[in-house]
């Protein structure tokens, strides 16, 4: 958080000079949010890029004071969520309903760069990621966005509420509804149940 305050101050003083640092600091999370909302790597990369471009343009119009006061984490998250929602809507309009199953691409090894693990463990973890990402993609849009920001991205309830422009109470309810649905779905997943047994054995 302190790092973000310092970054916002640098952006306020010299947008062009500090923008690269903003991209470096936030690209993984913006990409992750978009990927978990959209389920497709290419869409996620385009949305993340678009979000940065919008952030840049917005800041170019803001005065220094307004940039300094930006809370970068929830602000950038809100841009990605909105762009993802728009893209999803466009995709939905173009795609016939039968093909609406979310294409889930979980990111494979990249999500778990744990070299120490045995191939078996790695494969099991990959499977967990895939299952979880698929379960997440099955959530309704509201709870999904809330869970992604709150638990994948790690925003606080207050920040999540700010990013989603919803009351905190609504966010809390959506997060717990989302978690409950995930838990239910994962409990019925045989592979994951086996994996969990292995880990706790």
């Amino acid at each position, binding site marked *: 958080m302190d790092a973000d305050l310092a970054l916002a101050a640098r952006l306020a003083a010299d947008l062009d000079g500090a923008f690269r640092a903003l991209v470096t600091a936030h690209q993984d999370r*913006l990409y992750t949010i978009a990927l978990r909302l959209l389920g497709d790597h290419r869409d996620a*990369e385009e949305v993340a*890029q678009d979000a940065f471009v919008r952030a840049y343009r917005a800041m170019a119009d803001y005065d220094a004071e307004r940039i300094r006061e930006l809370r970068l984490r929830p602000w950038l998250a809100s841009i990605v969520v909105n762009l993802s929602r728009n893209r999803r809507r466009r995709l939905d309009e173009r795609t016939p309903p039968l093909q609406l199953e979310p294409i889930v691409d979980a990111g494979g090894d990249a999500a778990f760069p744990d070299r120490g693990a045995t191939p078996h463990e790695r494969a099991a973890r990959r499977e967990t990621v895939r299952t979880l990402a698929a379960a997440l993609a099955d959530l309704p849009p509201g709870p999904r966005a809330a869970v992604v920001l709150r638990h994948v991205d790690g925003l606080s309830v207050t920040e999540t509420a700010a990013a989603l422009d919803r009351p905190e109470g609504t966010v809390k309810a959506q997060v717990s509804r989302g*978690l409950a649905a995930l838990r239910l779905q994962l409990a019925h997943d045989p592979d994951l149940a086996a994996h969990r047994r292995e880990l706790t054995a």
Partner: protein
Amino acid sequence: MTARRPSGAAAAAPDIDLDLESALAGLTVPAPETLALATLVAVGLADRCAELPSPLGPIVVAWNGRGISWVDRAGDPDAFGARFERVVGRPVHRAEAVPADLARAVAARLAGDRRIRIKLDLRGRTEFETAVLMKALEIPRGEVRPYGWIAAEIGRPKAVRAVGTALAHNPVPLVVPCHRVVRSDGSIGQYSLGGPSAKRTILAAEGLDPASLEAGARAGIRFLGSDTTHVVCLPTCHNAKRITPQHRVPFRSLAAADAAGYRACRECRPAAGSRAIAA
């Protein structure tokens, strides 16, 4: 990050809740390596470059999200990169090819189509320099205008030398056709993209005859009039080219044309840049 456990976990065992939240936190994926550069290029904080054909041989074109930022003759890529970074102050990255829409726009511009929209990144130019370059964009293919014409057209009639300097520093030659601007006495003048001989080459490729242009200049012919319409033009104006030889009347000055009862062509506007005639 601390694991947050939902309250009142009646059914699910606590370790599963913990598992779920940490597993969700583990869904983070590193952004693809291409994202940062693509983003910086999109906002114009980095550039890409690739080669295109031109009448002067292969050229290298640099661009970013704001438009074309640089045009140069193709040569040693490393030297180009170093020069670009030194002059422009941004890194430039080789791309496979110029994007199709950009390549099409450059080709259309080189072919003389001035209607096609082309985005130019002219950051770092002064207001005056930008006005000079924008004015040069208006000069049709196969025609030339004197430096003084640009100076007068942009409302700075005395800044002829500054116009020359601005054109010499044109970052996007060929695309902004600074080669179509010649000295006020009609001689061919300098050219940043390979000197006067390259300027002759490109003007010839555009359908002008540089030799006759310079011969006319040496003979003191600055303007051509038609004794049927009594309109006077700059010698390369497409209206001047249509005057048949028996009706063609050369003038050394606009004052002489004015005295003979000729009015200035409304397309090439020869009045601009002439001290002799007061509009």
